[in-house]
């Protein structure tokens, strides 16, 4: 009997649409061979980080075993191969997000660093006292704190687009919030708590009409949806590799060339300079201007393998799978009268990050209980404290899905929630 991987290799590693079977995809992920507290692992925490397929792990091992060298500075074979692997992923990322220019793709540590670069470099040069910065109430701390700090430093006003009771953006007064004083609008394309998919196209259009820039936090959307940043005309996009099968420690900042050209680097050192004298320095060209020091080369190589894996599955197919599974999960959770689900009830308007609360059991007790059943969920404020407070709770439990999750996983979750009621004697 051949493993899924062997079958894939025989077929050139390209699964067809009809072969989108999460049960088979699971076989590509070694972590699912392990148990947790003696139970098979049910991983429902992909919004925090996804698991890694064997091909990504192999790429890291191959890189360090046979290609390891520093990039862009050696004249030997290994350095050339390392540079090629590193730059090949840049090109792949550029294609993946809608065919932008590779020089518009900057490697960072993660989405957080990408957003900070924009807030510090572009923000401090362009935002002034009396200007406006607009974000939403559903932002992750990574897309909130950098703007809060920028507003403090510059004296610009930080305004929030509110959310409605069902977890959608309230666009009723959007024309007043994004006004002519607004310099930048920064928002998530998909909430990591509510799952909400925001109408970024509409907001980008409104913002551009008012002369404001737009940064999209794509940490949750790029791994789960086809994202064509060129079609959206967003000015900046930030996302992380580890939330889309890649390694931790590497992320992406996309920016339109015309803006990146004018921006000053925020980190100085090797790689990002073209000419250094004792008294002066000239920056390197894009994208290296923003990549000071030795980057995460192995991470970039492995991220390339992750992108290839996702492309083989097809982002449209991934979205379809997650839509079906999210609909199923919402239905199963809605049937539990002691569970309140946050965020949109219409699966078309959301992704598969589903935050919920049990009427009686605290999220941390619930997460500890589910863990003993082998079910990994997250409990807490999910790095969105203001949003959690707005929902009227101190924390929530969150189940989040990805390509390897099955309806069986959701059944286990629902059963686990029922069992928790019995265990803590609420039934």
């Amino acid at each position: 009997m051949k493993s899924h991987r062997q079958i894939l290799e025989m077929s050139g590693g390209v699964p067809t649409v009809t072969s989108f079977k999460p049960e088979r995809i699971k076989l590509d992920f070694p972590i699912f061979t392990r148990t947790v507290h003696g139970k098979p692992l049910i991983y429902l925490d992909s919004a925090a980080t996804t698991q890694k397929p064997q091909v990504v792990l192999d790429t890291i091992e191959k890189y360090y075993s046979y290609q390891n060298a520093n990039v862009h500075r050696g004249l030997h074979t290994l350095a050339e191969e390392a540079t090629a692997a590193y730059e090949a992923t840049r090109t792949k990322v550029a294609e993946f997000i809608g065919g932008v220019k590779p020089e518009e793709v900057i490697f960072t540590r993660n989405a957080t660093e990408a957003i900070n670069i924009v807030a510090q470099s572009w923000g401090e040069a362009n935002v002034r006292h009396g200007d406006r910065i607009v974000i939403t109430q559903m932002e992750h701390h990574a897309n909130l704190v950098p703007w809060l700090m920028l507003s403090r430093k510059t004296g610009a006003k930080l305004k929030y687009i509110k959310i409605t009771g069902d977890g959608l953006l309230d666009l009723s007064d959007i024309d007043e919030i994004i006004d002519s004083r607004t310099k930048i609008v920064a928002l998530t394309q998909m909430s990591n708590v509510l799952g909400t998919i925001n109408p970024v196209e509409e907001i980008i259009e409104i913002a551009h009409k008012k002369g404001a820039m737009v940064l999209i936090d794509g940490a949750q959307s790029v791994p789960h949806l086809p994202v064509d940043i060129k079609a959206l005309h967003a000015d900046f996009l930030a996302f992380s590799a580890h939330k889309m099968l890649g390694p931790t420690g590497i992320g992406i900042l996309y920016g339109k060339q015309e803006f990146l050209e004018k921006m000053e680097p925020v980190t100085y050192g090797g790689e990002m300079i073209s000419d250094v004298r004792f008294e002066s320095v000239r920056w390197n060209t894009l994208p290296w201007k923003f990549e000071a020091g030795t980057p995460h080369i192995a991470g970039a190589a492995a991220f390339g393998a992750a992108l290839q894996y996702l492309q083989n599955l097809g982002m449209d197919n991934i979205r379809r799978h997650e839509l079906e599974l999210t609909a199923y999960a919402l239905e199963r959770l809605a049937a539990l009268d002691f569970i309140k689900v946050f965020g949109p009830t219409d699966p078309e308007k959301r992704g598969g990050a589903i935050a919920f609360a049990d009427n009686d059991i605290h999220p941390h007790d619930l997460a500890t209980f589910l863990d003993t059943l082998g079910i990994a969920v997250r409990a807490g404020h999910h790095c969105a404290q203001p949003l959690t407070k707005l929902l009227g709770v101190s924390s929530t439990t969150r189940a989040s899905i990805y390509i390897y999750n099955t309806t069986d996983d959701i059944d286990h979750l629902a059963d686990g929630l029922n069992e928790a009621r019995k265990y803590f004697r609420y039934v």
Partner: protein
Amino acid sequence: MSDDLNNLYRDILMEHYKFPRGRKKLEHADIHNEGQNPSCGDELEMELQLDGDKIKDIYVSCVGCAVSVASGSMLADTIKGKTLAEVKKIAAVIRGMLKGEDVPDNIDLGDLESLRGVKKFPVRIKCALLSWTTLIDALAAREQGAEIRTSTTE
């Protein structure tokens, strides 16, 4: 269910969680402190009324998980009527126990015995510690004549 889980959520602990003690606000408080574990969202308010060097009355209100609420409830039960010296001693013992240290033979833990199961769950130790740290910090600040507003175990 696993033995570890049953050891964490013992009946006594769950009873304290569902019916926490020390929830009556005090008319007069000599010591006030708050506890916060921001990453959990746990919030605790503590007031102590003294009679000489004895704890005359205590108010503990905790919004949090079963472990943090129960631990606060047991704290209220345990320290009422005790001298400050006794309270400091028991608080130190509990803190040590949660961190895996042995409990001296001459100490009767009573309901607090049920917190022994927490140390098997490293991420939950901070929950059980919150009320005790809030208490210890408040007493230390009082001794030093310092002001205190919040404590945390994160």
